[in-house]
């Protein structure tokens, strides 16, 4: 299942942005609604998505709201494992070239061993990693292990991050810079916090990577609003909610409508 690993996520996405494209990155909890349907959904979404964030479930996801918690519980109860998830991603990547970014908490990575995890993720064709409970101060070892395998470690910037720190995080990030739109865990929201535009503005001068906004982007309207300043959006809960409801056509149409909202044709 060896896939080309000499792939630079940041350069790939930067190229798209330079062509005037806004980026749409849906989030899927790995293995849902079933392993086979997950792979099919990945491939289907890849037609309109620029990258796909794949959540490897963790038993204690403190950055996630009720919907993604529920998805994590279901996936773990169905017997999903770290190796199993990487296997499913590798399968999907045989059928599409849309890059996969893994989102997981630090303990499963730590438990596997940082080098081992990086090696397995690279072999599966994964392009980058988001670890929401691993702040900059603790990330040096993993950052190096991933770099050695050509994978990006994506840094998150929050509304409470002071300006000086935001510039440091932006400069350290690879792949893209993840701006957390609001103070809170993942979930749906009706309006975009004005803080998110300010954070994007704070970050932009310090990176040439795409700046993506995530957490609470649940409609095409919000995605369009976020993309007035940002280079793209990450859509998690709104996708996973539909997956949990077994509404897979709804997931596909949501992502198409977001695509349309951020880059009106």
């Amino acid at each position: 299942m060896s896939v080309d690993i000499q792939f630079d996520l940041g350069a790939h996405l930067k190229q798209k942005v330079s062509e005037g494209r806004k980026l749409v990155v849906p989030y899927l909890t790995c293995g849902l609604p079933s392993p086979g349907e997950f792979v099919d959904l990945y491939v289907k979404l890849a037609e309109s998505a620029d990258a796909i964030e794949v959540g490897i479930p963790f038993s204690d996801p403190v950055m996630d709201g009720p919907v993604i918690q529920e998805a994590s519980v279901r996936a773990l109860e169905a017997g999903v494992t770290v190796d199993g998830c990487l296997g499913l991603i590798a399968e999907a990547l045989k059928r599409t070239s849309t890059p996969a970014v893994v989102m997981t908490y630090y303990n499963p990575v730590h438990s596997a061993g940082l080098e081992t995890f990086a090696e397995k993720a690279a072999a599966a064709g994964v392009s980058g990693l988001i670890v929401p409970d691993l702040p900059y101060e603790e990330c040096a070892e993993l950052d190096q292990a991933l770099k050695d395998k050509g994978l990006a470690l994506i840094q998150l910037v929050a509304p409470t991050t002071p300006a000086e720190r935001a510039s440091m995080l932006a400069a350290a990030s690879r792949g893209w810079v993840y701006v957390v739109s609001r103070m809170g865990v993942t979930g749906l929201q009706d309006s975009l916090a004005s803080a998110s535009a300010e954070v994007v503005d704070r970050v932009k001068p310090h990176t040439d990577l795409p700046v993506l906004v995530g957490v609470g982007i649940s409609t095409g309207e919000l995605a369009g609003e976020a993309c007035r300043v940002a280079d793209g959006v990450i859509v998690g809960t709104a996708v996973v909610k539909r997956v949990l409801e077994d509404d897979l056509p709804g997931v596909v149409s949501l992502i198409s409508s977001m695509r349309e909202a951020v880059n009106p044709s």
Partner: protein
Amino acid sequence: MTPPRRRPSFWEPKYTDVMSARSAPAGVTSADTRGRWGEYGGVFVPESLMEALRQLEAVRVEAWTDPEFHAELDRLNREVIGRPTPLYLASRLTTKVGGARIWLKREDMAFTGAHKINNTLGQLLLTLRMGKTRVLAETGAGMHGVATAAAAAYFGIPCLVYMGAEDTRRQSHNVARMKMLGAEVRPVTNGSETLKDAINEALREWVSTVETTHYVIGSVVGPHPYPQMVGDLQSIIGREARGQMLELTGKLPDAVVACVGGGSNAIGIFRGFIDDAGVRIYGVEAAGTGAKGAPHSAAIGLGRPGVLHGARSYLLQDNDGQILPAHSVAPGLDYPGVGPEHSMLKDNGRVQYLTATDADAVAAFRTLASSEGILPALESSHAVARGMDLARSLGKDGDVLVCLSGRGDKDVDIVAGMLGL
């Protein structure tokens, strides 16, 4: 594993453990400038919380070096908590066991009934200094929830407590107490519905409200600076106990014993004796039913290092790094992790970690109750159980000091149920 590249320290200014140094010639332990205890500890939290932790550390360092803060804390310790708590010679228990003298550090006689209040009043003072207007806490057995609610009421600040739904049932007495003290109690129905899940929910709530709310963590767990701060605030237990032992016996104890869930009463009393090489120190983890393959809470004894709730420490987890459900008859020990300072003390061999089963704890509860008229918390009963063994093996000239971390009123329903009373 290669050592991490050197990074500029996030924690400014560099702190000194002035609180311990000020009043105790011995027992000074502290994390390094990265918040590490050896290879444990650290700060594994979402970026959204980093600024709040930096602020907390800055305010803590300032307070620790401010005589006014210490004067106020000393006053609260005396007038509100009733410190110093007694050092008590359990004579009839000693006779019954037939070995070394058994001394109890009576944290059960502290205001609200456990050592937890030592920590919460101190953290409330820091809350005011940070200008925050609301506090948040998790609780297992309910003693930390009650201690936070009481401290919040004392300072006139709103208080929200998360408690696992299972724990709200088995410690319903404490749920009522928290509500009477004006706190809001939110039962948590996720996961195993115990302490771990209450901490998860508290962290999620904190991410949303961090700008106005201080999270009063109840043990020496969590991201830096919590293990340092809570340990420092609890170290008064060991400072007092050491002085009291010297005063009453003219010597130090041969052994010090405390129960370990997250491990704050244990760190509190251990800190007083860490530098006394002749004093053997024992932590007692909960072995649950003791049945092979059954869930337990012995993170140090049977876990391996991992990262949960902000720190690297010994942890009960499966091969994939998923956290395993813990169990103990004592809700305050029912936790799959342990404070990072304990992990360091295990690895460097200064502290030996033992276990006691649910049955051992209940038996010790009965023995202490009938021989001394004291109802100990089921958590503390784990320490009493191993303390009696140590007394037996040391012989009559020895002295064993047990930290009686809390009172057992909250546990009368559990024990009555088990004994068919």
